[in-house]
């Protein structure tokens, strides 16, 4: 008999280095993390200790799963907070000696955010991996743009050495195999993967990894509520052995998106109407497109004329891909793109530096999102003095940035060169996040019906709550491995057994009523021979093995308190059983015994106590079920006789 490997999981976590305390160790401490003896490990990197309620996009995702003897790496992210070696996972940890390609069967990237794909060129070109990398088409298209942007900032601006080059990004992307939604990709003969829609950002996907009858679903980041440009995540009832889900908002139930949208639009509208300028600092991809669509449709609906600008560069390229991948967007955009592609903005134009000084109302989207540098900061400085203007922060800001300062209520900012900038413009905060909240996570778990759940990408304290809820409401085991902890998941693999057709038909004919997926009792003999299993009828088994048949009969005595004669007792037993077992054939034989199907019941007087009768119940092994039922029934005693017996 073949042994079925169970997927095991191990999780190790790097030391948290707040503020970059001078620890030389990589994110995976080689000293602490045990080498897993078995096949499976899951490493996972949690975001550094960032202020509460934020920072979900700051972190490293890199998870290793071993399933059915196959090793799969899920995501390959970098850490935004570090500038040294710690920004990339320590891949040497995967195999001490030996090539990564030999150890990993494939790498899957869920979406294009850098904390999910930032380390990819480093991993494949500098560490060395030549196996397949799977991602969806939009991710494949947008990923290199972001990587190139990241490289430029790191190398050209900060002047770092030993960083991956443009050529490396190109080479890395050559190893990518693009997958479509719901397309089952056969990685090798045993391993197959399948992508599901995840919302979150364009091209984000959840992946089902399947080997034989065992499967794991990795969600990446996902969103269960649709927004203005993307739909909601969806998965079928695939019943995986393990569901690895993000848990960024494990302890939050969010309000309806509509209020936020309405507030946002109202604020922009009011400001524009009184002639003010609106600055919206954004990161180039994701939320920016959602806000663009929101404003574009609002301008269209309300017939507004004030110009909207979008700072150029990276965004233009990205918008181009949004236009292309219409099938990945939401219902409205998909349905109307024949008349007009929603991403071909009518009201939104490219921004030029000179426009900032133009008189009259306008709305400007500018990068970066936290107002810490670049164009958004420049514009902010120009406009901050006028109380008619407004800045809307659509996302979280890291401590120390201008964004964070103004959000926490500072009205005077010290800029470089000892300048003091007084802020008169209105400052607004609008959170548009694209992660599933606690209800959403539960909804997804409910949809997929996994055997167990593993929580990643979240804070331990919050996960604890969610873990408790999942265990309580779905009655499945839930893991939230702490750092450096190994999780092993036993599975109960299904073993195919052959059954002879004759036996199957015979058994089918017995029970007339259908009972769907309920387990059904079937009598037969299991023969294990040459590592295959067969279920045959007992006669055939006897024949095959050359054995003689033996009859097995159970008898049982039941004592009854009944002072009447044996015949009367038998009669009472008969009428009692007759009334209870309507579906069975109950007979009263002339010799005073009662039969139920083939079970024989005889009543005899007790040798010592005349007030007690002994019921002899006898049945064959085949009738075990009914026989034991009858005995238990009789042990409960007979109902009081209508004539008022003892």
């Amino acid at each position, binding site marked *: 008999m073949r042994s079925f490997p169970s997927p095991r999981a191990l999780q190790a976590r790097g030391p948290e280095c707040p503020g970059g305390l001078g620890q030389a160790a990589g994110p995976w401490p080689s000293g602490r993390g045990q080498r897993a003896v078995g096949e499976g490990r899951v490493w996972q990197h949690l975001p550094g200790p960032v202020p509460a309620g934020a920072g979900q996009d700051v972190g490293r995702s890199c998870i290793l799963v071993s399933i059915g003897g196959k090793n799969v790496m899920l995501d390959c992210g970098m850490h935004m907070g570090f500038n040294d070696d710690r920004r990339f996972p320590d891949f040497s940890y995967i195999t001490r000696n030996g090539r990564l390609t030999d150890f990993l069967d494939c790498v899957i990237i869920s979406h294009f955010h850098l904390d999910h794909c930032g380390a990819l060129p480093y991993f494949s070109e500098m560490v060395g991996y030549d196996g397949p990398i799977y991602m969806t088409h939009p991710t494949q298209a947008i990923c290199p743009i972001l990587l190139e942007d990241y490289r430029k900032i790191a190398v050209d601006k900060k002047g770092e050495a030993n960083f991956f080059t443009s050529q490396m990004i190109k080479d890395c992307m050559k190893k990518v195999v693009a997958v479509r939604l719901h397309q089952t990709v056969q990685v090798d003969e045993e391993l197959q993967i399948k992508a599901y829609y995840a919302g979150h950002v364009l091209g984000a996907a959840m992946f089902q990894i399947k080997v034989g009858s065992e499967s794991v679903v990795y969600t990446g980041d996902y969103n269960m509520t649709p927004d203005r440009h993307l739909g909601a995540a969806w998965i079928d009832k695939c019943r995986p052995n393990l569901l690895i889900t993000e848990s960024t908002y494990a302890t939050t139930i969010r309000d309806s998106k509509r209020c936020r949208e309405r507030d946002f639009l*109202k604020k922009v509208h009011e400001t524009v109407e009184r002639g003010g300028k609106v600055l919206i600092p954004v990161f180039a991809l994701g939320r920016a497109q959602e806000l663009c669509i929101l404003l574009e449709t609002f301008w269209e609906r309300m017939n507004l004329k004030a110009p909207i600008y979008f700072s150029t560069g990276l965004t233009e390229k990205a918008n181009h891909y949004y236009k292309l991948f219409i099938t990945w967007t939401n219902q409205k955009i998909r349905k109307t793109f024949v008349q007009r592609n929603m991403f071909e903005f009518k009201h939104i134009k490219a921004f030029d530096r000179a426009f900032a000084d133009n008189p009259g109302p306008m709305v400007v989207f500018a990068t970066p999102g936290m107002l810490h540098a670049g164009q958004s900061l420049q514009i902010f400085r120009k406009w901050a003095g006028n109380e008619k203007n407004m800045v809307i922060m659509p996302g979280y800001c890291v401590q120390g940035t201008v964004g964070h300062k103004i959000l926490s209520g500072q009205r005077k900012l010290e800029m470089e060169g000892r300048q003091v900038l007084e802020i008169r413009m209105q400052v607004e905060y609008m959170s548009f996040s694209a992660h599933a909240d606690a209800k959403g996570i539960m909804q997804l778990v409910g949809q997929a019906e996994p055997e167990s759940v593993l929580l990643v990408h979240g804070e331990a304290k919050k996960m604890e709550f969610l873990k408790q809820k999942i265990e309580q409401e779905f009655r499945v085991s839930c893991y939230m491995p702490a750092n450096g902890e190994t999780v092993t998941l036993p599975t109960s693999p299904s073993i195919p057994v052959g059954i002879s057709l004759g036996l199957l038909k015979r058994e089918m004919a017995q029970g007339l009523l259908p009972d769907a997926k309920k387990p059904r009792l079937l009598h037969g003999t299991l023969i294990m021979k040459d590592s295959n299993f067969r279920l045959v009828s007992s006669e055939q088994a006897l024949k095959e093995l050359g054995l003689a048949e033996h009859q097995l009969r159970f008898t049982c005595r039941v004592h009854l308190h009944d002072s009447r004669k044996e015949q009367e007792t038998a009669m009472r037993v008969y009428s009692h059983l007759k009334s209870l077992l309507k579906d069975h054939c109950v007979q009263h034989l002339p010799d005073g015994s009662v039969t139920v199907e083939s079970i024989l019941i005889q009543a005899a007087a007790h040798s010592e106590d005349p007030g007690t009768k002994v019921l002899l119940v006898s049945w064959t092994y085949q009738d075990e079920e009914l026989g034991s039922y009858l005995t238990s029934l009789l042990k409960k005693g007979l109902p009081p006789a209508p004539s008022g017996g003892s």
Partner: protein
Amino acid sequence: MAAHLKKRVYEEFTKVVQQQEEITTKKLRLTKPSKSAALHIDLCKATSPADALQYLLQFARKPVEAESVEGVVRILLEHYYKENDPSVRLKIASLLGLLSKTAGFSPDCIMDDAINILQNEKSHQVLAQLLDTLLAIGTKLSENQAIQMRLVDVACKHLTDTSHGVRNKCLQLLGNLGSLEKSVTKDAEGLAIRDVQKIIGDYFSDQDPRVRTAAIKAMLQLHERGLKLHQTIYNQACKLLSDDYEQVRSAAVQLIWVVSQLYPESIVPIPSSNEEIRLVDDAFGKICHMVSDGSWVVRVQAAKLLGSMEQVSSHFLEQTLDKKLMSDLRRKRTAHERAKELYSSGEFSSGRKWGDDAPKEEVDTGAVNLIQSGACGAFVHGLEDEMYEVRIAAVEALCMLAQSSSSFAEKCLDFLVDMFNDEIEEVRLQSIHTMRKISNNITLREDQLDTILGVLEDSSRDIREALHELLCCANVSTKEGIHLALVELLKNLTKYPTDRDSIWKCLKFLGSRHPTLVLPLVPELLSTHPFFDTAEPDMDDPAYIAVLVLIFNAAKSCPTMPALFSDHTFRHYAYLRDSLSHLVPALRLSGRKLVSSAVSPNITPHEDPSHQFLQQSLERVYSLQHLDPQGTQELLEFTIRDLQRLGELQSELAGVADFSAAYLRCQLLLIKALQEKLWNVAAPLYLKQSDLASAAAKQIMEETYKMEFMYSGVENKQVVIIHHMRLQAKALQLIVTARTTRGVDLLFGMCEKFLQEVDFFQRCFIADLPHLQDSFVDKLLDLMPRLITSKPAEVVKILQTMLRQSTFLHLPLPEQIHKASATIIEPAGESDNPLRFTSGLVVALDVDATLEHVQDPQSTVKVQVLYPDGQAQMIHPKPADFRNPGPGRHRLITQVYLSHTAWTEPCQVEVRLLLAYNSNSRIPKSPWMEGGEISAQAETSIEGTIPFSKSVKVYIMPKPTRR
């Protein structure tokens, strides 16, 4: 021997076929009985199953008469027994089903055969088809209990089949024919009583999802047929809610809904606790849970059904709007709650700060329910759904629930307001309409009003107008609210001047609903000053008129208000009361000369007297048919005048009065035409005078078409009279032509045509002929045999005498009758600036009109443009251009393209609306017509148009092209 016999049979059949070829096509009917024979031959000729299938397919294309069905069935059955190929058997089985549906054929004779072949059939597909046939037979013979029982028996037997198709059909059969409990006890002779419900219920757990769906559908079918479902089904159905397949879940949701409506007050236990709740509440919770199902089909279904669960406790109902927000395990208030709090604390207008949504108290982790909390937040999810179908369904459900519960209406307001911002216009429109429907139950807070009014800037006209209608019936709580609404409406007016009428109307209701709130605003609105006279505003400014409409309507129920008016306001009142009387009510202004009080709408005469008057005057006319012509004519003229006046005064009687007046006018014209003294004059002399008679005939024709097609609610009895009148007009026309033309050929043709029409009339209205005693057509039909054989001249003579002798038919008044009318709102025809465009190119003219009482306007209403050169152009508006704002009312908003060659100076074109008609549309279908002889019908069909709106003049100027 047998072979020989058969050969002979075939020979005979062949003969029949040959005969068929010889016979001319006119006597087609004779060959029809041979249909079965032909089929038989075809099937015998078929060498391969494919061939046979082809023949059968061909055969199925033609209908079979009731009398020959049985023969055909026999032949088909015979072949069925012989056929080896399952596909042919399948086709035969399906044909049997089709044939048994033939009207006039009783299929009980083939039932035995069908059951018989069912028992020997091996192919699952054919079995399923046969069961389908049995279902057709069973539904046809739904009265026969014994047959039903037998069929149910058959179905039960095949329920254990291994094919899902067969099981499906069996369940369908059980659902459709399963006997109702009462009758089972009576007629169950010999057949075991089967508990159909239990049998079907067992298949809820079938291994095939299609069978499970079929079982639930069968159960629903039982319910539809009036069988009371057991409450035990509820638990079974609840289990099906977690089925893997969406169609099963979708059907299960329906079933749960049905059970919850049947046993709303039953008590069910809550699993894993000792509590018990009402079944309807439990079901509500379960259906709410399905609103977040994985499949959108199920979500739509669930959201729709929620709306009709009115017995739900309010406690559960209100949960659907509460999602129990939290952040980092701390309870958080929703934006709605915050808005309300801000409003009640009086700092509504202040901007929001970062962090005011910061979570407050800690949440007890044990008490938070993330999933099984049933109704919790169902509508929040539904309204946020990805698919707009779900969102619309949720909005509709909200509407229905809010209409039955005012406290819920109050709560769902915020959510509806949020939906005004949806990305799909349909959803926005739907939520505005919903809000209007529930507006009686709610009072708008200022901040809510503010959000609502924001939508007034929407570029879609439909949205804006829906919003105006919503404001018409909204309750506003404060005077600031009224002021805000007025300001926003005026903003809207400047941005979209075309909304003028709609806004005025909206302000009219706003004023009359909130007189006390308007009162303190009056000085500000009229910009009066306690000491100084202010400048008199421009009377033609739509915005000023809008303000006045608001104030005057409020003043109607607020007698202190006029004291605040300045002199010019009173002047403006008098002007507006005249020019916009529908918007400005009559006010009691002390010490002022008022508009004559007689017209005051307050004194509404009781309905009865006027109705009586109408009846009396009509009866007077009908009884006076034998008076001298002069007197009759005068009486008719007076009555027509009376009726017209009555119609003007009493709007609810306008339809009847106009209709009767039109009829009397026809009669008057006819009498006048017949009274011409010149009828006796020799034909040549008469020539000049014929104008009057033929004009009368033409006019009568026009009037009859108007009567027939311009009124809604005209019944068959009126149609007969109208057609009869038209027939008389045609006779008159014939007589006149006969007298004026010389050629016999022409006359001959006309005569024939006329007689055809008489024939047509007779066939169409054969049922109504007894009511037409002594009438023109009655006499005409008596003489019909003679007319057919006689010469045209003679026919004319007979007609003439008959026309004179014919009596005046009484026109029975229909219950409800309304005249179709249209008003063109735009173009208003006031502009002095011509529309200039380059000749040869087109200019788009916006047309906006309201239509009243037009049936099926999409196909009947046309726009006509008349150019000064007499050229007329007919435009068919797109079906999407029509909107239906209320019962009997339609709105046409379309664009008309004008084009012409260059003119030297601007000139006016006329635009008007036409009602197109087709004379066949009203004629009742007689059995005779079903025979397929449509040709006769087509001959007499007349298409035409009736103008039904005043024409509007548009000044245009096509300029010559510059080169």
